[in-house]
């Protein structure tokens, strides 16, 4: 390795090492320790925390599976919404594009709690959405839109979409428009041209966007607390409450480590699946 490169890397490595890697290692160690009834960490190796989590259907289905499921559903919708948004931006004229990108980024400058509280107003009993539904005669009385899984999913979509748009926008921009035009000159309908040319070429953007969205959603914390009404249990919230209410730091660490490992495994699996599907697709089309 060249010396200047090493020196330039030093600050980021130091910061990441001291404030991210080391605490993470400590959390990992903590997850294998016990906790006394009054909350002291007991310095003896144990697998008890993992056994407690992995042998209890409450932790496995009500907590872990719910977290994965909601994060996955939210990711799917984030990618759908984000893709349409990115496509619209790419197809707009360059001057408008800059403004549209700015609009997409704008929510990121507002604190997440504030954004989620705003969403509570929108989804509330007397909120604009319910007024619209009742006004249009779609519902005869205000619906319960808040404090359930749907509300949490909507909240997570709202958080993830800007990231998805940016990821897909970058890739779509690099695909020459002429490719689609060429497809259409040889008889493809606009839809077929999109489906057979643009969509496959934008897979890296979808991949990047969905990985980002899933990563953000699965560690969601503010959204399930505010929009879940105390009934939508989430891994990150459970870890927090295990530390601050139950005062069992090792078990809280265990929940955190399981969330981390599962998220990484799922993302790895997902990337592998999409990549291998991408390799298989051209062969199918040729045949």
């Amino acid at each position: 390795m060249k010396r200047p490169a090493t020196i330039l890397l030093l600050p980021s490595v130091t910061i990441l090492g001291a404030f991210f890697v080391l605490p993470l290692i400590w959390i990992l160690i903590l997850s294998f320790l016990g906790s006394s009834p009054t909350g002291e960490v007991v310095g003896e190796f144990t697998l008890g925390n993992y056994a407690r989590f992995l042998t209890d259907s409450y932790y496995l289905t009500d907590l872990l599976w719910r977290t994965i499921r909601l994060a996955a559903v939210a990711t799917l919708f984030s990618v759908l919404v984000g893709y349409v948004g990115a496509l619209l931006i790419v197809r707009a004229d360059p001057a408008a594009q800059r403004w549209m990108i700015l609009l997409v980024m704008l929510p990121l400058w507002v604190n997440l709690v504030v954004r989620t509280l705003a969403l509570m107003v929108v989804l509330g009993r007397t909120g604009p959405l319910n007024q619209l539904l009742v006004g249009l005669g779609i519902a005869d009385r205000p619906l319960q839109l808040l404090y359930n899984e749907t509300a949490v999913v909507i909240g997570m979509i709202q958080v993830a979409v800007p990231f998805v748009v940016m990821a897909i926008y970058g890739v779509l921009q690099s695909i020459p428009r002429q490719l689609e035009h060429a497809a259409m000159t040889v008889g493809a309908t606009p839809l077929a041209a999109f489906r057979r040319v643009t969509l496959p070429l934008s897979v890296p953007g979808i991949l990047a966007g969905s990985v980002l969205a899933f990563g953000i959603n699965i560690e969601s914390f503010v959204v399930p607390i505010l929009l879940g009404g105390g009934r939508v249990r989430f891994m990150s919230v459970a870890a927090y409450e295990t530390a601050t209410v139950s005062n069992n730091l090792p078990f809280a660490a265990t929940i955190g480590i399981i969330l981390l490992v599962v998220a990484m495994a799922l993302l790895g699996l997902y990337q592998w699946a999409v990549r291998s599907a991408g390799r298989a697709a051209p062969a199918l089309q040729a045949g």
Partner: protein
Amino acid sequence: MKGILAAIALSLAVTPAALAQTKELVVAAFGGAYTDAIKKNVATFEKENGVTVTFVPASGADGLAKAMAREVDVIHADMAWAYRGEAQGAFEKLDPAIVTNLSTLYPKARFSDYGVVTNFGQYGIAYNPKEVSPAPTSWLDLWDPQYAGAVTTAGFDAANIELLVLMAKLNGGSEDNIDPGFAKMAELGKQITVFYSQHPQLLDLFRNGEVVMARWLRGRVDWARKQGVELGFAVPKEGAIGLVSTVHVVKDRPNKELAMKFVNYLLSETSQKTYASDLGYTPARAGLDLTGIDVPYGEDVVGSLLIADWKKIVPQMDAWKERWEKEVVAR
């Protein structure tokens, strides 16, 4: 990092003259209006003792962590964290020779040698008088099937632990036999649509008519009325649930005696009155003249507060929290 920033802030704040003799006392408190109320008369204490009092916002797990790291001299807590800190050896025994005001307190305030309750809040039943009639008189009214779906309480917090223990006691159990309590709370869980997590959220639920009855704090009901939501507040016949603020002197810190004096200051007549006038909490000190302050006060009020045996509860909290999620919250 925080230490460095604090050090810079301090070196900027301390003037050369003060540098010569001023000692510093670091007090962890709940922050916001609570800290403001304690601060109100602190200048006198600082002058009398030649000390600068610095307040840091910390409570619960954070407060105890700061105490264990010996970063603060005095911490505020609730019953659960008080007993955890005591068990972990974080606190000094309060010295009655310095904390002379201890003798002026109601017996309920002196729950342990390692800390003291400075004031009490009252949890009762907040209700919408247009929807709930007759007015609730018992905690069991929350279970009334007539209001199913329109009642609420918070998550697994201290007051719900008190309610859980009360339900156990009313059904033949106790802190040591909590099963009857969970059976009863599970019934309540079925009638609850939303477990509230913040006060403004509950205010909104009342305002929209989604909730007509809730376990809530007296001071918060007054606040809700000021926001234009008409609410009644009932003290159930079993007793109001006590919300307590405890204070503790952290072990092995240089200014132990000053820290004790600070606790004594919090128990002084002036400070105790401020808890009532500025925060709406019931003082722990007996014999105060609170005319003109609309706060429940007196031997009967403090004596009737429901405060369970937290020394027995604390070691079971991890297991109870898990049961709460499984039996009360889950549908």
